[in-house]
């Protein structure tokens, strides 16, 4: 199966996603923002539909839309501190509804590709997508190694982070934007419905396996590699959607650990 160009690209993409997911996922979980990732993936569906409708490159339109919404979410998180689920729910359904309406307006052959964006597709990964993912992975690894300590402090407790002199507002916004860009890039591969699962599950699993912060990231990368590659092969042999196959493997690992630990 490695003879097919698309399978090679799919494997390259999987390895890159395995490196990114635990880092972002851990912070998303600890900042209680797992739902935000879900919201952004629904919004990114609207971004893609908008791109298709306007006839621009959906990837770029999508990144733009998701980044803007990620900024708005941070604002809402601050204003409705205790009721943040409400703004999340509105944006999530709003994103999905917008996507569906935009699709309805677009009566060219775009419905086919919407299907692909909902459930993900490994056949269609382009060389350009792999390159963008590679750049993103490098950026995230560099940012993580530079800002590990400030992020640790911020994630542990925002108020003590503020009193320790960190620009917590700016850091939160930058983190959300980075999450948005990642979701926009990964979404076409694994599907909008399961992007957040792919980002969050490796860290959710490795949190149970490691005592230390760094340990969670390293074990998470291992877990992600296993899940992504097994899921990809399963998807290839069984003809099942990649995102769903990978998610089921993660859930299987999660259950095994829950039983044996």
């Amino acid at each position, binding site marked *: 199966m490695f003879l097919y160009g698309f399978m090679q690209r799919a494997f390259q993409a999987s390895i890159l996603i395995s490196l990114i997911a635990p880092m972002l996922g851990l912070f998303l979980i600890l900042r209680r923002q797992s739902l935000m990732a879900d919201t952004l993936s629904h919004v990114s569906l609207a971004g893609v539909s908008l791109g298709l409708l306007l006839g621009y490159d959906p990837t770029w339109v999508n990144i733009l839309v998701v980044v803007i919404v990620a900024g708005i979410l941070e604002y809402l998180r601050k204003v409705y501190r205790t009721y943040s689920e409400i703004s999340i729910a509105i944006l999530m359904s709003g994103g999905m509804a917008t996507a569906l309406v935009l699709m309805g307006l677009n009566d060219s052959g775009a419905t086919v590709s919407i299907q692909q964006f909902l459930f993900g597709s490994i056949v269609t990964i382009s060389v350009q997508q792999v390159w963008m993912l590679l750049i993103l992975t490098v950026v995230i690894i560099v940012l993580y190694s530079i800002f590990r300590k400030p992020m640790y402090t911020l994630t542990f407790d925002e108020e003590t982070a503020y009193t320790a002199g960190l620009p917590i507002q700016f850091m939160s916004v930058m983190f959300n934007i980075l999450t948005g860009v990642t979701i926009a890039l990964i979404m076409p591969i694994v599907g909008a419905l399961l992007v957040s699962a792919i980002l969050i599950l490796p860290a959710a699993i490795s949190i149970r396996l*490691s005592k230390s912060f760094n340990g969670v990231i390293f074990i998470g990368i291992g877990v992600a590699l296993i899940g992504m590659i097994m899921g990809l092969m399963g998807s290839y042999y069984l003809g099942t959607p990649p995102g769903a196959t990978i998610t089921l493997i993660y859930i299987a690992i999660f259950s095994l650990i829950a039983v044996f630990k």
Partner: protein
Amino acid sequence: MKAGNRMQYIKVDDLAFHYEDEPVLENICFEVNAGDFAILTGENGAAKSTLLRNILGLLKPTKGSVTLSKKNTEGDKLVVGYIPQQVASFNAGFPSTVLELVSSGRYPRGKWFKKLDKEDKEHVKKSLESVGMWAMRHKKIGELSGGQKQRISIARVFAMDPDLFILDEPTTGMDVDSREEFYKLLQHASEYHDKGILMVTHDHEEIRHYANKHIELIRKEGSPWRCFSMDSCKERSKHPSSFH
């Protein structure tokens, strides 16, 4: 009592604070200087935590002002160590060892982007030892008891070695002996290292021998609201409420 020429770390001037339009603090005036060990008392709901959060800039005063010194006694940037109330409930699932968390106290000491050196590690070790938690350093923080969590929060602040300690009921859940030990350490820090300390506490009998300043929030007379305040700003500056 300490001389009046100590460097001023906190100055609260005629502060008032309202949640929405419900006044909770009014006429608050006091100062905390380098070398002061000040305790802040008042019944539950007296807005002690609210006052601390105003001082730290986490809340903005409705009226009056809070001035935090920019510099410490040596002329460097003032480092503030804050322990919020009820750290025991903190992020129980946070994946971190005790050692990692306490070491993170060193980061604001110019170590955000640098490796911790020998001196940092020495500080971390000493602070963990001072609260009797060195042996537990490889434990996951979520697995500690309430009192132990409180102790490592204290160790984290000691590791930071701040110029100004702002502590919100830091000894909740700690046993008598560790409390006494902690007060002694704070007294030493203020007396010999010129640290400023502002600590919210309910056990002011116990602490009488250690602190040198007492700020009490009392219910405002004739007020229909739950307003608590210092007696009056003018009166206060004439009779500093120190009890030594």
